[in-house]
């Protein structure tokens, strides 16, 4: 099959451009083809080895550890008992797990929707032509390029209870009592973390949606304008349907990215107060590295991966459906 395909390509080359291939032997020996195939495989070899050793093997290890009674003692002695799915049963039965799962869902939805809407608004605005457009657009990328720890630290300062600027502004408007403990009040802490995450995600959404909008043929709009379609109608009947594939990608990447958010939450609240900002990602870390229950931590990590894969599969099914 493989050799047939290669031969097919060569025939094509030979037929289409006979004058360009005089240096090639008329008939290739088996040895020639094998050497060429090996040469070509050698381009992929480092990447394949890296993927196997740094994704494949850790994943295998993660699954195997999650099926063992693997704690610090087991790590030291090198002996861990096989306990089947018990780690998963313990994890899922834990109150903190269901709390973290629910908070992950809330955090994800509350991050993605505002991020997307604000990003879309900005992308639409920057479709207009004006001086500095390009410069301002790339400046706006900064929040997204910043190390997440920096953003987390920064937002912790902005939300600071004694002197945070957010507290000062809102308190001076009498919207909240002065010295409101954003990061120490359950409920509000999750909102604060989500706000920081929205800020980080806006540029990403904007850039992708902007390039999606740029890809829409201007003639559609001109035709619609001649037919007397208003701004909203044009947006509803031209922009949205044609932007659908890009919207799908933006949302799916946002979902997968938000699901694994760790740094911001860890820096801003460390999952607290009283697990009120614990998500599955921070909980997996907590089990593995704070409590040193590696088996249970790996199990939660595998559950997050499973959720990501399911989302990706749903997306693939959705995107392969012919657009109506």
């Amino acid at each position, binding site marked *: 099959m493989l050799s047939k395909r290669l031969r097919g390509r060569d025939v094509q080359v030979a037929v289409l451009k006979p004058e360009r291939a005089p240096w090639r032997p008329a008939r290739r020996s088996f040895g020639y083809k094998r050497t060429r195939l090996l040469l070509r495989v*050698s381009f*992929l070899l480092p990447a394949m080895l890296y993927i196997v050793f740094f994704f494949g093997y850790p994943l295998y290890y993660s699954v195997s550890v999650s099926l063992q009674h693997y704690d610090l003692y087991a790590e030291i002695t090198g002996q861990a008992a096989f306990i089947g799915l018990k780690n998963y049963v313990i994890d899922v039965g834990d109150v903190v797990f269901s709390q973290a799962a629910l908070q992950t869902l809330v955090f994800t939805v509350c991050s993605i929707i505002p991020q997307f809407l604000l990003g879309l608004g900005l992308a639409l*605005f920057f479709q207009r032509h004006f001086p*500095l*457009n390009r410069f301002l657009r*790339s400046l706006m990328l900064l929040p997204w390029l910043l190390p997440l720890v920096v953003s987390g630290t*920064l937002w912790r300062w902005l939300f600071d209870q004694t002197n945070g600027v957010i507290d000062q502004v809102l308190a001076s408007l009498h919207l909240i009592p002065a010295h409101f403990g954003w990061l120490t009040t359950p409920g509000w802490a999750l909102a604060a973390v989500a706000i920081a995450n929205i800020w980080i995600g806006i540029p990403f959404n904007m850039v992708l949606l902007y390039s999606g909008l740029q890809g829409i043929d201007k003639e559609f709009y001109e035709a619609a304008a001649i037919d007397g379609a208003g701004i909203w109608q044009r947006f509803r009947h031209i922009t949205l349907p044609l932007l659908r594939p890009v919207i799908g990608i933006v949302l799916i990447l946002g979902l997968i990215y938000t699901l694994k958010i760790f740094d911001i939450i860890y820096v801003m609240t460390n999952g607290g107060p009283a697990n009120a900002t614990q998500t599955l990602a921070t909980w997996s870390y907590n089990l593995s*590295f704070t409590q040193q229950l590696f088996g249970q931590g790996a199990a939660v990590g595998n559950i997050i991966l499973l959720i990501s894969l399911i989302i990706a599969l749903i997306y693939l099914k959705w995107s392969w459906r012919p657009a109506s």
Partner: protein
Amino acid sequence: MQSQLTERARTQRQISLKALALTLIGLVLTMALLFPLYWMVISSLETNQEIFRIPAPLVPAQITFSGYMSAFTTQIPNLVTSLIIALGTVVLSLLIATPAAYALAHFRMRLTVVVVFALLLTQMIPTVTLSTPMFLIFNKLYLLNSYFGLILADSTYAVPFDILIMSAYFQSLPYELVEAAFVDGTNEWGAFLRVMLPLGAAGIITAGLFAFLYAWGDFLYALTLTTTNTIQPISLSIYNYLGQYESQWNGVMAVATLSAIPAALLLIFFQRYITAGVTSGALKG
């Protein structure tokens, strides 16, 4: 004739007024989005007394570098550590990713399909899922607390992304260029090194930039794959600094500003590449 000219001048003036208004709105929007960053820089330049004044001044009355003094004295080694790890990740991930990206762009083999599928899968894997097994494996291999270990781990961010964006770039270069190089009797590797690498420089720069930013920003591997303070990337040391000097926000913000500088510099100098990378990595990958 005269009226036509004034007519045109008037419409032009209208257009430029409209453009001016749009630019103003754009400026306001950008300033609103970047306000937290302004606040970070301002806070880093204030004295610790001024930082606690209520209401906080929008512009500091006096600028002091005391925050930076304390930040610099403690953070220089950690900045160097981060630089070593980030550059190491750039080199390693480009060595791995560049030939693979080229192969995915131009070779038709069954293997390429497998590799593309594997790459898409790797992008779904949360770092936190990898961190537990990576810690246990690295512990056995004596790779904890080492530059090399962190470079190997940080490359998990860069390798898949780099392959996908560079492959999109190599696809835009015609394979005929390589075939022409075969006249000289070079093999695939020779043609790749001599023809494709120079032509693909823009794609390689983009990939390298992102590898740098990923490794510079890494926190989770720095947190889990180090158990002592011998090697402490800046991301990890900000967190520790914050824990140690929670009330000295000017110092904390100075450290944060220092570690944000590479991202800002890269954005200024490589604006075009970064915008291209964000879109092509996500849309074509």
